[in-house]
């Protein structure tokens, strides 16, 4: 059976109206947007912890909520595993009892207890109380508890938001692992771009209670209008390009070679085997443009392409979209240069350029929070 979560709901509050409609399939769907956009509220409505006023919610074809048919399934019968921002462990129970609290459901388990416990690396905590655990450990237990309730889909409400940077780095690989291990739809609410870049297969961009756009992660997040929603207009957002690739080889001296749709890119050390998928973020201001093939430079990455559109960014700068694979390049690369340079180089749509990128400015998975 196809794993699919289908949502189309509205909820009216005195100063806010939520109207969310989307579908999420197996893999991670990130619900991204500024705070106050209604992301958490959407998740709570789906889980049945808040009431939508109108619409329908379906999981794998089963209606959970349908105002037309007067269906409101209570949260305990919705088959979601929910991970909240705070771990919400039961303080009076051992970790083991916390983990098994939801496994009374008469459904086929996703995996047995031991596998989930070792997947999350919490074997050594089983007989302790939540009180004695670190924030990261608690959140791992919360994830395990959700998985052990045999859910048909996972809802994660900013599960890393309450953790510091180190703890976040500690947990992200576990979430990646469960995404690979279980073919579940995972709805992942976040306002952190880095988490989304690392985890999401597709993104839903939410603003003021509405899903304004959605699509595959790289493509959607590389769009300027999406970036201005996420970062706010006031910050005169600098365009960001996200490109995905696979680790092709590891050089000595730590350099890692990544195959991307633009050709090979060299980045500083990243974890992982050859073949591992990763995403690279490139900030527009880190790019140097040349109208001739560069020689004799320390630069490790040169991307050949043609100029697509050019948009003004403030009074003195211009953002240039470079298409490494000609028209319809996905993704295309944003570069920010001064108007002065653009004029001197005679840049115009269609002109051939070489984009120069120092290897050290390429941010990969491990550089969480480098940008936000």
């Amino acid at each position: 059976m196809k794993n699919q979560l289908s949502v189309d709901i509205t909820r009216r509050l005195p100063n806010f109206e939520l109207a969310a409609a989307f579908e999420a399939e197996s893999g991670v769907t990130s619900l991204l947007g500024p705070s106050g956009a209604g992301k958490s509220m959407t998740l709570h409505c789906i889980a049945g912890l808040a009431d939508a006023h109108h619409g329908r919610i379906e999981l794998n074809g089963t209606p959970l909520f349908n105002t037309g048919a007067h269906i409101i399934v209570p949260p305990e019968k919705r088959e979601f595993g929910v991970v909240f921002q705070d771990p919400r462990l039961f303080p009076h129970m051992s970790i083991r009892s916390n983990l098994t609290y939801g496994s009374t459901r008469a459904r086929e388990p996703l995996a047995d207890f031991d596998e989930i416990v070792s997947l999350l690396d919490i074997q050594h905590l089983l007989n302790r109380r939540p009180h004695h655990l670190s924030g990261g450990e608690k959140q791992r237990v919360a994830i395990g508890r959700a998985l052990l309730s045999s859910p048909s889909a996972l809802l994660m409400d900013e599960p890393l938001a309450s953790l510091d940077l180190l703890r976040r780095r500690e947990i992200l690989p576990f979430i990646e692992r469960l995404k690979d291990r279980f073919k579940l739809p995972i709805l992942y609410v976040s306002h952190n771009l880095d988490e989304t870049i690392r985890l999401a297969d597709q993104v839903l961009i939410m603003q003021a209670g509405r899903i304004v756009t959605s699509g595959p992660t790289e493509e959607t997040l590389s769009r300027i209008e999406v970036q201005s929603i996420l970062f706010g207009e006031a910050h005169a957002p600098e365009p960001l390009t996200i490109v995905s690739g696979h680790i092709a080889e590891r050089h000595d001296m730590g350099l890692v070679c990544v195959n991307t749709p633009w050709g090979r890119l060299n980045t500083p050390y990243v974890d992982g085997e050859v073949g591992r998928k990763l995403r690279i973020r490139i900030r527009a201001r880190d790019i140097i443009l040349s109208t001739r093939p560069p020689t004799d430079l320390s630069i490790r990455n040169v991307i050949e392409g043609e100029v697509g559109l050019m948009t003004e960014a403030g009074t003195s700068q211009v953002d240039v979209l470079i298409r490494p694979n000609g028209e319809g390049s996905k993704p295309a690369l944003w570069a920010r240069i001064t108007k002065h340079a653009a004029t001197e180089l005679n840049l115009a749509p269609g002109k051939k350029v070489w984009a120069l990128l120092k290897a050290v400015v390429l941010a990969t998975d491990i550089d969480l929070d480098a940008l936000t």
Partner: protein
Amino acid sequence: MLDPLSQAEWVALILSLQVAIVGVLVALPFGFAIAWLLARVNFPGKFLLDSLVAMPLVLPPVATGYILLMTFGLNAPLGHFLHETFGLRLVFDWTGAALVAAIMGFPLMVRTIRLSLETIDYGIVDAARTLGATPFRAFITIIVPLSLPGLLAGTVLAFARALGEFGATIAFVGNIPGQTQTLPLALYSVLQSPGGDALGYRLVLISALLAIASLAVAEFVGRFLRRKLTGSEQ
């Protein structure tokens, strides 16, 4: 046999315990329900209920006893009905004294339980629901255990208050040895009789020991529960 207490003192002591224990146990389910309403439910007239619950605390106890007499006296409709239907005669009976104990301890009980219910993080109840728990299972497995220290503290406070109850009791059920004469009432009688002030200290001592013992038990059990509940060392 060397008996530190006289026959009359034993009778008063046992009656006191009986009245207070029965009163508190009867009050407990109501106290929990009302504390739950006040802590977790918003409804019109909540302020009114809150004030009504606090009444026995601020009203002169004799006035409370008088109101009870007017309500449960055999000539009052409700008292008449209870007596005719269930043979329950509260006036001038130890059951009436237990009712007084329940009512006088009620505000303290409700307040304490309410406080403990308000400190529970109800996010974890939501979490329990998403894990498949019905509201009832969540209540039994999460809310009851977590409010246990408050439940215990509220019960002990109400019990201690009931042990010391005087005004409403004497107004409602009188001062009948072996029937309604609890420790404070016995002390009052002793002080009223000539030369009684010399004997009074024994009853004061018993009352004080009883109060200290109940507080000590509460403290001990409370600590144990808190350690059980959170696994913390304090």
